[in-house]
Each structure stands twice: as structure tokens, then as C-alpha cells.
């Protein structure tokens, strides 16, 4: 009884973790399945077929590559614009600053379906052909709010004296930005980048409305689910998950090592 009381927090934590990870485990396990029919919904027997031939399904890897490209460019676009907005909002006093501060949350707050439909209306009325570019514009738009929020939090906690100190120590505006401002804001920018990449990569609703005939990976999965689910989808899912976990672990190791060398 006493043991239980002592370890209650740990047990609750582990259970919550299991709750979060279970779906991923299922995806992983079923990536080694060899289904009888077209649907990968019930366990048959172990097989490495799908892992050996991840691009064996027609058009899937094309859609995956498109999604990765979209995610990368959306991240870059949202990062550049979002960082500038964040700095402007924190550092400068200008007209409509308050309005922009609250409007920046609009894409987060608005239901995605509404946003998707209104974007489509906008693109159609402007006579813009739907495809890669319309999706990219849409993705950058909704990633922006997340980047701004993440970077703003970091910039707000930055001491403006640090930049004054840099200028005082013979660093011109460019050097000050590259050597002091950017490295210190980096954790916020990195957090924004991760969010932007993940959001863009798996966005379905806005993409589906504005993609025209282009097919991203989430759209491919959705489309194929009508006719059957190839095991390769699970392979891609597992690979992405493992990659993400590895990145987080690597990040942890690097920060830990940095701390250690600093104290040594």
C-alpha cells in the first residue's frame, strides 16, 4: 500500500504514456503484417515484404516526396516571415500592433474546414490554378501563427541589453543579428520549425480543398483507404515515428553533453 502511494505519480505517468504510444505501436506492428485481402486491419502473419519494397504501391512515394517538399518549404517560409513578425511585435511599437497580436491567433482559432473553404473561394475568385503553390501558400499561412507564438515567447524573454552589448563591442547590425540575436532566439525558432513541419506534413483538410489534382501523402492515405490499405502506409508511418523519436533523443544527448563539458 505504501509502495503504491509512493509510486502513484510514476504509475499514472506510465499509463498516460502508454495511452499516447499505443496507436503508434499498432501502426508499427501492422507494418510487419501480411494481410489476406486488400485491407490491413486484422493480423495474419509476420512478413518483411512491405519493408523490402516501401514504394511498391503506385503513386505513394510520389505523394510522400511531395508532402516532404511541401513541409520543408512551408517551414522555411513560415520561419522567415514568422520570426520577423515576432521580432516586430516584441521590439517595436507601431500602429495596429495590438490588432496584429490578436489576429495572429486567428488561423489557430478558426475551424480548419471554414478556413479551407474560404481559401478555396479566394483562390477560385482570383483565378489561381489549384496545385502545389496554392497548398504551399495555405500551409505557410496556418504555420505562421505557430511560429510567431513560439518565437515571440523566446524573444520576449531576451534581454535587449545583450544586443546593445554586442553593438558596443564593435559588432555591426548584421554581426549582432548573426552572432547574438539569432543564436539566443534559436530554441524558439527550432520549436516553431518542428511545429510547422509536423503541421504541414500531416494537414489534410485545407490541403484537400486547395490541392486541385495534386495528391499529398495524407490525401493518398485517405484515398486508398476507400479501396484498401496497403501495408506500406504503416511502413512510412513507422519510419516517420522512429525518425522523430531519434531526433528528440539526439537533441537531448547534445544538450546533456553540452552541460557536462561546461561543468567539467
Amino acid at each position, binding site marked *: 500500500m505504501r509502495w503504491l502511494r509512493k509510486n502513484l505519480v510514476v504509475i499514472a505517468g506510465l499509463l498516460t504514456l502508454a495511452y499516447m504510444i499505443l496507436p503508434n505501436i499498432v501502426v508499427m506492428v501492422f507494418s510487419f503484417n501480411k494481410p489476406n485481402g486488400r485491407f490491413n486491419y486484422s493480423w495474419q502473419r509476420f512478413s518483411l515484404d512491405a519493408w523490402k519494397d516501401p514504394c511498391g504501391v503506385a503513386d505513394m512515394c510520389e505523394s510522400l516526396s511531395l508532402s516532404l517538399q511541401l513541409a520543408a518549404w512551408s517551414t522555411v517560409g513560415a520561419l522567415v516571415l514568422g520570426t520577423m513578425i515576432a521580432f516586430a511585435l516584441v521590439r517595436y511599437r507601431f500602429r495596429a500592433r495590438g490588432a496584429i497580436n490578436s489576429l495572429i491567433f486567428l488561423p489557430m482559432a478558426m475551424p480548419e474546414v471554414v478556413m479551407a473553404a474560404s481559401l478555396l473561394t479566394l483562390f477560385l475568385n482570383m483565378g489561381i490554378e489549384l496545385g502545389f503553390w496554392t497548398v504551399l501558400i495555405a500551409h505557410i499561412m496556418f504555420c505562421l501563427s505557430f511560429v510567431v507564438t513560439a518565437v515571440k515567447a523566446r524573444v520576449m524573454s531576451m534581454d535587449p*541589453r*545583450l544586443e546593445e552589448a554586442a553593438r*558596443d*563591442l564593435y*559588432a*555591426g547590425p548584421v554581426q*549582432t543579428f548573426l552572432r547574438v540575436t539569432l543564436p539566443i532566439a534559436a530554441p524558439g525558432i527550432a520549436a516553431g520549425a518542428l511545429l510547422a513541419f509536423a503541421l504541414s506534413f500531416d494537414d489534410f483538410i485545407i490541403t484537400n480543398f486547395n490541392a486541385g489534382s495534386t495528391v499529398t501523402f495524407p490525401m493518398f492515405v485517405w484515398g486508398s483507404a476507400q479501396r484498401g490499405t496497403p501495408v506500406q502506409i504503416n511502413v512510412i508511418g513507422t519510419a516517420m515515428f522512429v525518425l522523430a523519436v531519434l531526433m528528440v533523443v539526439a537533441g537531448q544527448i547534445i544538450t546533456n553533453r553540452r552541460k557536462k563539458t561546461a561543468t*567539467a
Partner: protein
Amino acid sequence: MTDKTAHTGKNTGGGDVRLTGISKAYGSFNAVHPLDLTVPQGSFFALLGASGCGKTTTLRMIAGLEDPTTGTIHLGDTDVTDLPPYKRPVNTVFQSYALFPHMDISENIAFGLRRRGIKSVKKQVDDMLELVQLGDKARHKPHQLSGGQQQRVAVARALINHPQVLLLDEPLGALDLKLRRQMQLELKRIQTEVGITFVHVTHDQEEAMTMADQVAVMNGGRVEQLGAPADLYENPQTTFVANFLGTSNLIEAEVLETGGSDVLVTAGGGKLRVPGDRCTSAVRQGGKVLVGVRPEKISLAHADDAGSIADGRNRVTGRIADSSFIGVSTQYVVNSPAGAELQVYEQNIERDTRLVPGAEVVLHWNPAHTFGLDAAQDIDAGVETVEDAG
């Protein structure tokens, strides 16, 4: 590196800091009224005042971090008024130290040299670490150092550039009292060693007097008085300086005679003498004057012994309201017809046991230690602000 040409790199001499008609206004608020100030080369110069008096703004204008509204700044013969901070041969030690958190100590110190395109910095950085006694901390990050150590890094990071002027913005404000005393001596030692002009901003009058060769007392965006610490203390020109630097007893008095070298005045029925050349404003018979004397200049005698006080000394009778024993001295508060709550500091050499609250006493002092101030000023100027700034 475009800044290399503009920056001389070394202290080339001939470099007084000259502020001419410099002022700073934020909208309708005047942080600094037009002021002229010359800081002699190689001196330790303090800007002293309460918070909001314009001392930090003045310092930031010298650094180039603030654009003056009017006036010019010269370093030696060079007009630097329009130069950006990174082109001025001036470095700053910030109040919060502003060490770069993502760099270790030696990278922090090397920052200025590297920005000026100097490649081999190791020896200079090591020398600098030696000077501030932090040789073993080169690879530490700023947050791993104590406040005093961070402060020394900030000094090293600025000094390594051999600036013509080192600006210090309340550099000891965040340290505890003991460490502050230690760092005062340390900074003074470094200044003597490197011979660079130091301009030090502080609200601590003791700090300013301990360290500086010259002190400019600022109040409300103006320089109230400029001089050597002892001169400021002995000869305050305004009630603000009299009260802000140490403690002063100021007594409102009426002028009786102006004939001789001493001015004869009357306050609370008694007569006092003030040396005529120590009166800051013209005195005329029947006019008002503020008579000032420092608490440690006053001697205290019990009323029974009044007869034994030598002739020719200024006397004020009163009653002890309060006394506090602080070791080397005893501080008395005396109420008298001439003025309420007069302060007297008596050395504890031979303590008179009769001097307790309620005792009738005579305060007496050498008239030469008396100064006269213009009675048109606020008698309490600079009193409260000392507490506020702490």
C-alpha cells in the same frame, strides 16, 4: 570589417571626453537638460544621482546607445556624436552585465577583438582572465558564475579592447554589500593599472566618493555640482548636494551683520558665525540664509558644562531626543529652538554618561566648519531620494 578603420584600437592619448550642450528629451520629458561636462583623460569619474536623474542616459549617449537631442560629444579631438556604438572606441559594463549566455567566458571576452578581425586572441584573453582572477573559469558559461565573477567578466570583456573610455553603468548594484566593497577596491586597482578613463554611474554616494577622482552630482537631468569628493563633501553648493552626500544639518537663519570676514546670523534666538567666503549666494542684512554643518564636526557638551566651552565657537542649545550607539561613534538627535532633529556624531573616546535622551545639551563647533546656502531652495532636497535609490 569596416569598423577597423574608424576604430583606433589603442588608447592613443589626448582623449578627454567632452560633452557640449548635450541633452536628451523623450517626447515632452527632458531626461537630460543641456549640460557641458569634461572628463579628463585617465581619470576615474563618477556620475552620482538618484534613479531617474539622467546619469544613465548621459552614459548611454557617450556609448552611442542613445542619440542626443542636442549637443555634441568629443573624444579628444574626434567628434563621435554621429558614430554608431560599434564605431566608437568606448566600451560599456552594463548593469545586468549582459554577458552572452550562449558563449563561454573566454568567447565572451574575445567577442570585441574578433569583431574587429583580430585572429590570435588567446594570449590577450588569458592575460585579461588573469587580470580579473578568473583564469580557471575560461570554459564556463556565464550562468555558472557567481554575481561577482560575472561582473569581473563584464569588466574584462570591455577592457580587452583598450577603449579610450570605459563606461560603467551601476556595475556593483546587484552585488551584496561586502562584495561591493571588495569590487570597489578591485575596480579602482584595475583603473590605476590600465590608466584608462573610467566613467562610473552610481546612486551610491559612498561608492562614488571611495572610487572617483571627480564626482558630478546629478539631479533632475542637471549637474548640481562637480568636484573632488572631499571638496563636494566639505563645500556643498546646494541643499541637494549637502543632503545627498552624507548628512547635513541645515538651519534656517536670518542675517544680522555682513561687515567682517564672518557673517553673523541668528537662528532660534542664538547667534552663529558663517565664514563669508563659504556662503554660496550674496548675503544682505535682514535676508535669509541656510546655515549648514556636518554632524561629525559638532561637539556635544552637557548644559552644566556650558561654561567650559571655548569662546568663539558656534553654539546651539537643545535637548537630546534620541541616541544610538553604533560602535565607533554615538549618533544623537537633538531638538533645539534653532532647528528640529539636528544630527550629531560623537566619537566614543570618553563617553559622558549624562548624555542620554532628555538631557539638556549645548552643541558647539568651529565656525570655520560652517557653510551658508541660498535659502530659496528646498531645505530637504536630496534627503528622501537616498532611501529611494537603495
